[in-house]
């Protein structure tokens, strides 16, 4: 049985059908005029061989202007699977995504450089030294492979996390460009039985991580049937450029038939027009260009329509994930993906705030609620992410899990039908006839069925705000729970066959 996700009964839509079609038409025009600039020769050759007009551009870096005819794009959309399965070490964690079904899976991500530790020092009131309070103190540091293990471990136990995207960039001294991929894949897969998605640091490591996944899944065919890993690539850099190295990676992943996200992340105001119509027409063109290339490489490659649009901050021109427009763009993209019948990889929950707190809560909850309401299939929802994509805090991820539980309950389908109404009318008549006129006696069956939302899980006693401390306790509790590691025999084979995996990650050798 796959994970159930959240089925959004009537998804929120911002765009009319006419507006969706207008964006589609504008994107088709963009793909032929001006088209894309490709810095990747192979992509040019593939697209050219299928009818794209190609013209070399003079300059320091070899590049080509590629104009993709509408018919080529439409054929690619046709050949892209409308249902994508993302497997998992534990088959109960499989994700099945239908492009036309607004069933939302909540996923972590993305890769941050900074890991945020939290401590609770005691502060004494200067005016009254008998009064003390404990306040959270957040300390940033570079992420390590141990942090990644810890994050994967906690996310395994977070109820609302449906899939795991690596949360932190591993920057240990013994991690190099050559061994980073195998270690991030192993650290994540060994501590989490949910679907694992990642980008690739070095294309040279692709075969090693695929082999690792085959060993874990039970062979090449088993991995095809149960793709426990998938990839994400930003092959298109905004505006409208195929990047050389990520396009190479994309092409190679497609050749292997593994699921892949075609992601584009334009910034309205700098790398895309500031107006909504402009960024939407452009991002849609960019994603469709990637999907087209993937389907030409290998028709039927499972792809997700990946959208990470964002608006620029006006004070720094950096990303502003916390802006309301960012959520609007994301919702628009969900509609565009649904228009094509393709499962959508969307974004919410990323905030501008640098630490957990009021700003962080407001920014992330705002986008988590509204984007989830639009019904994307794979919501890369930034469990624990802060300061845009720079910082990961496990404590925040624990808080996000609780908040997504509330969103899940909010999005449930209303239970109003004839049977239900007959039952409640009977109840009303019974209660009104009693002296106390209270419905409390009818609460209990509903209370135990899980239909009623619970108390806020981190509510403190009295007037104290103990949210962070209680969430921290929860985090420690989750870390103390065991996870199902990869079995000893498979682990031994991975360490034998896959070069570069750090010996200290072998829990059986270190006697854990």
């Amino acid at each position, binding site marked *: 049985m796959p994970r159930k996700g959240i089925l959004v009964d009537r998804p929120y839509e911002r765009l009319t059908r006419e507006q969706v079609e207008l964006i589609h038409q504008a994107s088709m025009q963009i793909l032929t005029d001006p088209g894309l600039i490709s810095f990747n020769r192979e992509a040019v050759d593939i697209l050219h061989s299928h009818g794209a007009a190609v013209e070399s551009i003079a300059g320091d870096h070899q590049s080509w202007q590629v104009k993709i005819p509408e018919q080529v794009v439409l054929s690619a959309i046709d050949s892209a699977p409308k249902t994508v399965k993302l497997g998992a070490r534990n088959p109960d964690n499989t994700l099945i995504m239908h492009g036309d079904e607004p069933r939302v899976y909540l996923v972590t991500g993305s890769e941050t450089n900074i890991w945020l530790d939290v401590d609770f020092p005691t502060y004494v009131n200067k005016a009254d030294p008998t009064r003390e309070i404990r306040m959270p103190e957040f300390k940033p540091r570079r992420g390590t492979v141990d942090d990644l293990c810890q994050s994967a471990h906690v996310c395994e136990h977070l109820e609302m996390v449906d899939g795991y995207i690596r949360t932190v960039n591993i920057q240990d001294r013994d991690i190099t460009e050559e061994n980073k991929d195998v270690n991030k894949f192993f650290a994540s897969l060994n501590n989490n039985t949910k679907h694992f998605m990642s980008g690739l640091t070095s294309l040279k490591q692709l075969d090693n991580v695929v082999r690792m996944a085959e060993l874990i899944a039970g062979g090449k065919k088993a991995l095809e049937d149960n793709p426990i890993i998938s990839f994400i690539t930003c092959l298109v850099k905004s505006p409208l450029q195929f990047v050389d190295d990520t396009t190479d990676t994309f092409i190679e992943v497609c050749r292997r038939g593994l699921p892949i996200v075609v992601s584009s992340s334009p910034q309205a105001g700098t790398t895309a027009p500031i107006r909504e119509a402009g960024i939407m027409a452009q991002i849609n063109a960019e994603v469709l260009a990637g999907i087209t290339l993937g389907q030409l490489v290998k028709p039927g490659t499972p792809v997700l329509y990946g959208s990470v649009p964002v608006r620029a901050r006006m004070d720094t021109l950096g990303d502003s994930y916390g802006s309301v427009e960012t959520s609007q763009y994301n919702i628009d993209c969900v509609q565009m993906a649904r228009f094509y019948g393709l499962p959508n990889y969307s974004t919410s929950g990323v905030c501008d705030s640098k630490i957990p707190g009021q700003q962080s809560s407001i920014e992330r909850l705002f986008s988590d609620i509204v984007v989830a309401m639009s019904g994307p299939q794979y919501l890369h929802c930034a469990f624990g992410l802060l300061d845009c994509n720079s910082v990961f805090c496990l404590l925040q991820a624990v808080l996000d899990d609780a908040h997504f539980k509330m969103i899940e309950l909010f999005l449930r389908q209303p239970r109003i039908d004839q049977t239900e109404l007959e039952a409640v009318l009977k109840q009303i008549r019974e209660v009104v006839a009693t002296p106390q006129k209270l419905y409390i*006696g009818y609460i*209990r069956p509903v209370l135990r069925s899980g239909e009623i939302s619970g108390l806020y899980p981190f509510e403190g006693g009295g007037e104290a705000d103990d949210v962070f401390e209680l969430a921290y306790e929860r985090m420690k509790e989750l870390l103390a729970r065991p996870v199902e590691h990869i079995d000893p025999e498979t682990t031994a084979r991975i360490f034998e066959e896959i070069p570069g995996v750090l010996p200290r990650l072998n829990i059986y050798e270190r006697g854990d």
Partner: protein
Amino acid sequence: MNKDIIATIKENVIQGRKTQEDVGIDDSLEGAPGVVELMQQALESNISPQVIITKGLTAGMQVVGEKYSTKEYFIPDMLASAEAVGAAMDIMKPVLESANVETKGKFAIATVKGDIHDIGKNIVAILLKGAGYEVHDLGTDVPTEKVVEFVREEKPGYLGLSALLTTTMTEMGVVIKALEENKLRSSVKVLIGGAAVSDEFAQEIGADAYCADAFDAVRVLDGCQQTG
């Protein structure tokens, strides 16, 4: 056999099953006798009322209280159990009277004149009845004269006054003053509660105690029992 009946009464109190029609916390007891049916069996088996109360009803309520304090149980659970115990006490009332067994005391409760809010009052009544008090609910919008008359005639040891509104809370002071004028004040401990009132207000109007919620009311009354 007797032990089994008492243990089953205790379990049904914990489950909050007043009658066999109640589901309880889980489905395991569905259709089995509830507290009301078990009380009949216990009395027919000549089990002493004291044993039923201490080993069955009170022991069950103690577990319920513990589960509430650990947040395993919520107020609806507590009320269901208290209602079951209240029904048991109704069944036992004639037996207790004939055996001269004293209850914890007579408790009258009313929402004061001008105020028709009664959710809190009703919950207090259910919980106190479940805690072993003889509860007399005088209703809502109760005129001061009616309260005074009840105290004079029925001689309750405790009087609970409830008010939700800032416009009606002053009626509590009026009732206390009327009890004083009728020389009844010393015969009854007056407890007040409701969203509008506070400990400070209780002191202002000369009430004996302020109860923050229904559980507080049980604590305060049980405290009065211990201090006499």
